[in-house]
């Protein structure tokens, strides 16, 4: 930690500490406001209510499945972007990142236009008796669509970070590209892949706009935790409080795990940079 910057750093808490106070207040105040209103008895009572339990279960299941979908579809894409130079690469990169900046309602609307009954692909799906909108599957699609960029960009960076000389050594040892991917790329990029998957899960868990637009708000089948919070706001403030506290805690724990608690493999050693 005693690099070039060390020499410039003042040892006293100076003006910089003071200037971050407003930001900290802005971040902490809403969180504190939620937790200060909670009491244990309401928490226990609300967590036993069937609607809340349903929303909780639905959110966990859909977020896990969305993460799996993103890993399956996103890994080859990330590998392609990390290892190949081709025309239109920049376009593809921008396309992959697009859901990160898209208003979720726009994404949900676009999904409806694609998979709705009158949508681009909806007619074809309908011929097979499949109707996607307003089902649990639609929740998963909406979550995966919105959360995919987090995984793809983390995985791409992870693959790019693998030392090309190790891949050359593997090639000289008779490993073809598939074998190099499985035996060298994936194990060495594993921390990045895990981080990307965690971010994806967290984003899927918090997804609201695309879900309500594309999948609706049906209790038990498409009403996930964030939607349940929105509904509860209008009728049951205690329920909204408990659910918000829950989502806050889970999200914060996931982010924390990405930083410190994400245990590093032994071979990286204790002197590897964090």
């Amino acid at each position, binding site marked *: 930690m005693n690099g070039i910057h060390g020499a410039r750093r003042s040892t006293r808490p100076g003006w910089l500490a003071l200037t971050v106070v407003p930001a900290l207040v802005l971040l902490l105040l809403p969180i504190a406001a939620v937790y200060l209103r909670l009491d244990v008895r309401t928490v226990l009572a609300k967590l036993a209510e069937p609607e809340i339990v349903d929303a909780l279960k639905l959110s966990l299941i859909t977020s896990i499945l969305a993460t799996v979908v993103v890993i399956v579809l996103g890994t080859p894409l990330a590998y392609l972007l990390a290892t190949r130079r081709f025309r239109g690469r920049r376009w593809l990169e921008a396309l992959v990142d697009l859901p990160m900046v898209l208003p979720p309602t726009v994404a949900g609307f676009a999904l409806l236009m694609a998979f709705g009954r009158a949508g681009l692909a909806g007619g074809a799906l309908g011929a097979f008796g499949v109707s996607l909108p307003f089902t649990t599957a639609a929740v998963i699609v909406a979550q995966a669509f919105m959360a995919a960029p987090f995984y793809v960009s983390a995985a791409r960076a992870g693959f790019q970070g693998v*030392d090309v*000389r190790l891949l*050359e*050594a*593997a*090639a000289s040892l*008779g490993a*073809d590209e598939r074998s190099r991917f499985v035996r060298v790329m994936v194990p060495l990029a594993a921390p990045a892949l895990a981080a990307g998957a965690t971010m994806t899960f967290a984003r899927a868990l918090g997804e609201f706009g695309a879900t309500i637009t594309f999948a609706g708000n049906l209790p038990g089948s498409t009403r996930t935790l964030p939607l349940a919070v929105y509904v509860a706001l209008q009728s049951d403030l205690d329920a909204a409080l408990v659910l918000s506290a829950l989502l806050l805690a889970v999200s914060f724990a996931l982010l924390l795990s990405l930083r410190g608690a994400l245990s590093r493999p032994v071979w990286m050693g204790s002197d590897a940079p964090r």
Partner: protein
Amino acid sequence: MLRAELRLARGGFLLEATLEARAGEILVLIGESGCGKTTFLRLLAGLGSPDAGHVTLGGDVWCDTARGLDLPAHERSCGWVPQDLALFPHLSVADNVAFGLRSRRLDPAATTRRVRDILKDVGLAEFATRHPRELSGGQQQRVALARALVTEPGLLLLDEPLSALDVRSRAELRTQLTRLLGGRAGVTVHVTHDPGEALALGDRIAVMEAGRIVQVGTRDELLRTPRTRFIADFLGINLWRGRVGAPGADGLAHFVASGGEFTVRAPGFEGDAWALVHPGHVTLSLAASRGSARNQVTGTVAEITPEPPDGALLRVRLAADTPLVATLTRDSASALGLAAGTPVCASFKATEITLFQ
């Protein structure tokens, strides 16, 4: 038999090299850094494509640009030990070594057996479960070597395998290399910029200068008729023929040459040998020195010439029972007041003598 003729232009650099080596041969490719040695090796390994040329090993054509053929690295029976070793950090020593066997789908029992045997050969049997970062530089080097050797490649490419090691482990590994590579059926190409290493290890030596191979020959041929200035300079070393005696309990032995006797680190063999001392490792003084150097030769200065490229170093030729060359800075030469005819004592340590058969 390896036959390679490769041409590659990159920016202002042109590699245009032809090389042939027989099966079972250790060919040393020597040249200064930046002369194109590594680039040439990478083309042999299939880690790059030449503009033109061909590579064949035995009856197999690996590359022939005229026919549009250029096999990727994993389809060539070619072991590769890069300068930075490139050991897999996430795999244990045993799994590193087993990597190539598993690529070739050898059955697990045979894989385990061959890994165990080669780790024993390189003296790392008890390190099988360690990870590379837990090993010393010399041990890592031996893992990389074992990993490349275990698949018995038709062509083995070693890129400066000893350069990153300290003097002591370098000497150990050099002896080990001679033993390990000696019995190989395939061709070995060993790249180095160290003349001592080249003379010690090579059946034949190929000299590369600015992307071209300027001379190929046995040690004796190169010593007798160096064809370029670089070769002459690189042979500007102290090299004596003699006999190594039995090692003592202290790990030292005697080397007897026609003009004198030296104390050397026991090389692991006895009998006829060459002894080599780099001129930079010879210290000159006006009287017998009391330092740790075990070997001393007294004589008179015969000739002093400036060393290329800039003459900051002087090359001092010594007339003595054992003729010697030493290099030293201008400052130390004038401090000693050296001139032709000055009586001096030359000394060097036992560890600075390289022995080879």
